[in-house]
């Protein structure tokens, strides 16, 4: 079996595994809250911290709320954050990266310097700083994660566009009188799309982890809204007497993020022969 075939086969396996995990989580997020018999906010204080049982498969939390119901409701928040952050970041980053790469000069200088400064902050640090000053809320989490999210797309697309603008068909389109907007939209940006799709898939994983991390630190989604990170934060105080509070939301995050990483890796094996 040739190396290329092996890679494609491995890509297919990863992609399928990822699709199963993400698909299962998406279905659970959409229909899950409707089929469970509990409300994510309803409390049974007499049963607080009770472990898994037939009635409550994942047990109950510190306020006697059903953990399975809250994990399913939390999946909605994770998908909402992932989809919003990735769609806005990818659009903004692609647009700015394409402008920087295509026009060069001052446009490139300004956009690239902003990207450089934002990339000088490691990972989530800038998001933590932004939410710290703006205040903890879902809206601010989305804003903070988008602020750190778009730069990766901008840098990626700029590189792709720098290469693509020298392609003969792009120069031919320009010679035929096509305007900059048309050349960018019809001929240049599409060449960057495969890389953007891979980045967006991995970006879903990063956004979900980012939201959960901020919520875990008490800077994200606020109680009683059921976010996986908030649930983990609530479970910290009961790690000795009720570890199930920590176990299930964490497992949900790990599996969904693993699913998106599998999908992203699988897609990369398909689209990038050098990866």
């Amino acid at each position: 079996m040739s190396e290329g075939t092996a890679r494609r086969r491995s890509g297919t396996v990863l992609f399928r595994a990822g699709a199963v995990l993400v698909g299962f989580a998406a279905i659970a997020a959409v229909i899950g809250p409707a089929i469970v018999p509990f409300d994510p906010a309803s409390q049974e204080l007499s049963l607080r911290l009770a472990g898994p049982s037939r009635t409550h498969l994942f047990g109950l939390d510190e306020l006697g709320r059903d953990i399975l119901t809250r994990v399913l409701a939390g999946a909605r928040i994770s998908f909402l954050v992932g989809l919003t952050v990735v769609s806005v970041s990818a659009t903004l980053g692609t647009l700015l990266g394409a402008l920087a790469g295509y026009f060069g000069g001052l446009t490139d200088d300004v956009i690239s310097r902003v990207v450089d400064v934002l990339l000088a902050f490691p990972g989530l640090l800038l998001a933590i700083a932004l939410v710290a000053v703006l205040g903890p809320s879902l809206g601010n989490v989305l804003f903070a994660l988008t602020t750190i999210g778009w730069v990766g797309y901008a840098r990626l697309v700029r590189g792709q566009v720098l290469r693509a603008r020298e392609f003969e068909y792009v120069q031919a389109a320009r010679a035929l009188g096509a305007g900059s907007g048309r050349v960018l939209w019809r001929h240049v940006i599409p060449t960057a799309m495969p890389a953007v799709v891979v980045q967006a898939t991995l970006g879903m994983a990063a956004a979900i982890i980012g939201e959960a991390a901020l919520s875990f630190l008490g800077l994200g989604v606020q109680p009683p809204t059921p976010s996986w990170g908030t649930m983990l934060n609530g479970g910290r105080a009961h790690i000795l007497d009720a570890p199930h509070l920590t176990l299930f939301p964490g497992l949900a995050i790990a599996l969904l993020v693993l699913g998106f990483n599998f999908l992203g890796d699988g897609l990369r094996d398909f689209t990038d022969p050098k990866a």
Partner: protein
Amino acid sequence: MNGRPSYSSGLCTTTREMLRFLLRRLILTIPVLVGVATLVFSLIHLIPGDPVQAMLGESASPQDVAELRERLGLNRPLYVQYGSFIKGVATGDLGTSLRTNQKVSSAIGERLPATFELALAAMFVATLIAIPLGIVAAVRAGTPIDHAATTVALLGISMPTFWLGPLLAIIFSVSLGWFPVSGRGTLAHLVLPAITLGAPLAAVLARMTRASLLEELRELYVLAARARGVSHVRAVLKHAFRNSLVPIVTVLGLQFGAVLTGAVITETIFAWPGVGRLLIQSISTRDYPAVQGCILLIAVTYVSMNLLVDLAYGFLDPRIRYE
């Protein structure tokens, strides 16, 4: 002698070229550092409403608000505030903590050794796990062993530190009682936080080791070594692995930023008295000068680390210097 290139002149050219490279990289870093400082300065002005009122709370008296505004210099024009902030940063004066009245730079200085201790231990743990995993995956590429190693690495990347930490605490502290669940002091205190922080780095490093070693294993010199009768293990470890080290070390350096961010979460989980924990405590008490100081320190450390990696790469690979 005429016409022969002299060794000393070659050395001079290399030194000059290296110095030029060093200077260029240093100059390119200055605008980034100014940008970072500007962004950190503007944080306090992003607070919705009156930042002083936000720090003191709604019940603060107008006199307290006026005093704090004066103390923080927020009653001065913006450009004066900016100038004084940049001057402070350049001289290491990051202001005074609102919570403890301690100099922010001293508070950070006290906690910095703990953070570096944790970061270095995490990098050690990561290297210890990742290098053998990456080598095995590369040598057995395409086999179930490789797939298992790759999946383990992806699992490591996907497992959030804020879940792995509590999980390790449940198993090794609560159930087995092997390690303390929080605090700093002995080597036993360091084990769980270092594994928690090192696991995602190990995953990234294992993938990099696999990719880098695979590339080297395809080179002709490895085949030549085998043809000369060198054993497979020796060809892999002594020849191919040594050459694959440059990108691995680079990734290790570049991941330092991720380790610093991870430290914020890990220190919170294990009550580790480092800069990350100070940052989260300062956020919860709205001690914004301390927040600004911690953010600035972590970002500057990250930029400096990237610069060092860049320079090291320039030393190791002469092609980079000509770019």
